[in-house]
C-alpha cells in the first residue's frame, strides 16, 4: 500500500510542481508582477539621449508594457491569452530578425554583437579576445595540429555554435545536423578530404555538425595549406549574400499549393522564395559549384 502511495506521489509531484511553475502564465503582469524570461525591464526610465519612436508611449516617463507592445490592455491580459503572433504584438512588427525591434531605441552600431569570426585586425594580427569566445585559451601556435580535447573548447563542438546561431540557420541544416555518416560515406569523405586538402570533422560521437562544412576561422588565421585552415576565399565582413533570381516567380507558383496546406496546419504561411547564393563564407569547400556537397554525397546514377 505504502509502495503504491509513494509511486502515486512520485508520479503526481512533478506534475504538481509543473502546474505551480506555470501558474503565473495564467495571470497578467499586473497580477503576478513577473516578466517572461529574457524580457526587457519595465518601470524604468529611459537613458539620457534615447529617442524612441513617437508610437512607443511612456507611462510617467517610464517604460511600460504598452511602450513596446501594441495590443490593448497588455498588462491586464493573462500571459497565456496574449496573441504573440499578432502583427502589433511588438509595435511596428512583425520583426525579422527580432533584434531589428531593439534598434528602434538602441543604437545598432554600439549594441550589435561583434562578429567573432572576424579574427584579424587591420594589421593582420589576431584578435585574441575573439578566440576566447569559443576556446578557453588562445592557441599561440595556430598551425599546430591539436587533438579534440586539446582544442579546449568551451562547449562540445556540436553545441558551441548555438551560443550565437540558431539551430535552424538555413534550410537543410536540420537534415544534416546529427546525421551519422555510414562507413561508405565516411570512406568517401576521407578520400575527398585528402583530395581537396581539407578536414571534414565530425562530432565526438561521429555525427555531422556545423563545423563539418563550415570553417569557424576566417582565411588567414591558419595557413591555407593547413587542412584545418583551408577554405573558400571569401569576404567574411560582407557575410552571406544572395541575389534575386527570375525563377522566384515560378518557384513560388510551383510551391504555392503545398505551402498553403502547411499554412492551414500551422496557422502561418511561411515565405519560401528562390534566390541564388552570391557570396559564400566560412565554408571548407565551395557550395556554389557543388564540391562541398560532393565531398560527402555520391550517387549511383
Amino acid at each position, binding site marked *: 500500500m505504502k509502495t503504491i502511495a509513494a509511486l502515486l506521489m512520485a508520479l503526481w509531484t512533478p506534475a504538481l510542481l509543473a502546474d505551480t511553475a506555470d501558474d503565473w502564465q495564467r495571470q497578467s503582469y499586473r497580477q503576478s508582477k513577473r516578466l517572461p524570461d529574457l524580457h526587457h525591464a519595465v518601470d524604468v526610465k529611459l537613458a539620457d539621449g534615447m529617442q524612441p519612436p513617437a508610437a512607443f508611449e511612456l507611462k510617467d516617463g517610464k517604460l511600460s508594457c504598452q511602450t513596446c507592445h501594441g495590443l490593448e490592455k497588455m498588462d491586464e491580459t493573462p500571459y497565456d491569452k496574449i496573441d504573440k503572433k499578432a502583427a502589433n504584438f511588438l509595435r511596428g512588427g512583425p520583426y525579422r530578425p527580432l533584434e531589428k525591434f531593439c534598434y528602434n531605441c538602441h543604437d545598432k552600431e554600439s549594441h550589435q554583437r561583434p562578429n567573432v569570426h572576424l579574427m584579424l585586425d587591420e594589421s593582420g594580427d589576431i584578435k585574441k579576445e575573439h578566440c576566447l569566445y569559443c576556446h578557453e585559451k588562445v592557441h599561440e601556435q595556430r598551425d599546430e595540429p591539436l587533438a579534440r580535447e586539446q582544442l579546449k573548447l568551451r562547449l562540445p563542438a556540436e553545441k558551441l555554435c548555438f551560443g550565437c546561431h540558431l539551430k*535552424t*540557420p538555413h*534550410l537543410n541544416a536540420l537534415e544534416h545536423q546529427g546525421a551519422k555518416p*555510414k562507413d561508405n560515406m565516411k570512406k568517401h569523405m576521407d578520400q575527398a578530404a585528402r583530395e581537396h586538402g581539407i578536414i571534414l570533422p565530425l562530432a565526438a560521437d561521429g555525427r555531422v555538425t556545423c563545423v563539418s562544412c563550415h570553417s569557424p576561422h576566417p582565411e588567414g588565421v591558419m595557413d591555407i595549406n593547413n587542412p584545418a585552415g583551408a577554405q573558400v576565399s571569401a569576404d567574411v565582413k560582407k557575410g552571406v549574400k544572395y541575389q534575386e533570381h527570375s525563377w522566384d516567380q515560378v518557384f513560388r507558383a510551383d510551391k504555392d499549393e*503545398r505551402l498553403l496546406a502547411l499554412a492551414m496546419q500551422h496557422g502561418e504561411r511561411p515565405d*519560401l522564395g528562390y534566390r541564388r547564393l552570391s557570396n559564400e563564407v566560412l565554408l571548407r569547400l565551395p*557550395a556554389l559549384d*557543388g564540391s562541398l556537397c*560532393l565531398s560527402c554525397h555520391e550517387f549511383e*546514377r
Partner: protein
Amino acid sequence: MTRFLLFLFLLQLSLPSPAQTIAPAGVAMPADDDDEKKWWKQREKRSDVYYPHNAHMEVMKEEGDSCLLCHTFNKTDITDSDKLKQITVIANEALKPICHSCHVDEMRGPWRCDLCHDDKTKIWPADHRLDYANHHNEIARQDDKWCQTCHLDRNFCTDCHLRRDTAGAGYHPLGYRTLHGLESRLDSGRCGRCHNEIYCSDCHTARDR
C-alpha cells in the same frame, strides 16, 4: 488433369509470396535499412520523375549552378523544427520549370519525356486516358501547338501518320502519293509542317525538283 495441376503448381511458383512486393518498373526495391525511410531515398523511388544526379554534374558546373539549384540552403528565420522540416522537403522538391527550361524550352538537354518520366500515365493530361490515340485528331487539328508542349519531336506524329509500309489509315487519304505533287507546288509550306527536305529527297533527286 495432371497437366492442369502441374500448370497450377508452376503458376503458383511464379507468383510472388505475400511478403514480397513488386516494385514498379524502373524502381529499385527498398533495402531493409533505416536510410530507406529518408525522404530523399523515397524521392529516388518516385516513378513520376527520374533525376540521374551524375549525368547532371558536368552541365551543372558549366551552368554555374550546382546542388543548390534544387537543394536550397538559403537562410531562414523559422525556428520550429517540425515546421522547418516540412518546408525543407517542399523546398527540395524538383521544380518542373527548372528541369523544363533546359530539357523542353531550350531543348539543350535530352528532350524525350520518357527519359525522366518513365511512367507516362503520371504526367499526361486526363483526357489521354481513354482511347486518346483514336480521338486525338480533333484537338491536334485545332491546336497542334498544344500537342507540342509535350510532343516536341515531330517523329511522334510522323511515325504513325507517314509510314510507307502501311496502306493508308494515315494523315493523307489513300492514293495521295500520286496526287501530292500538285498540293506541294501550291502550298509547300503546308507540307513543311510535318516533312523536311530529306523526306522528299528520299524519292526525288535534286534534278527532278
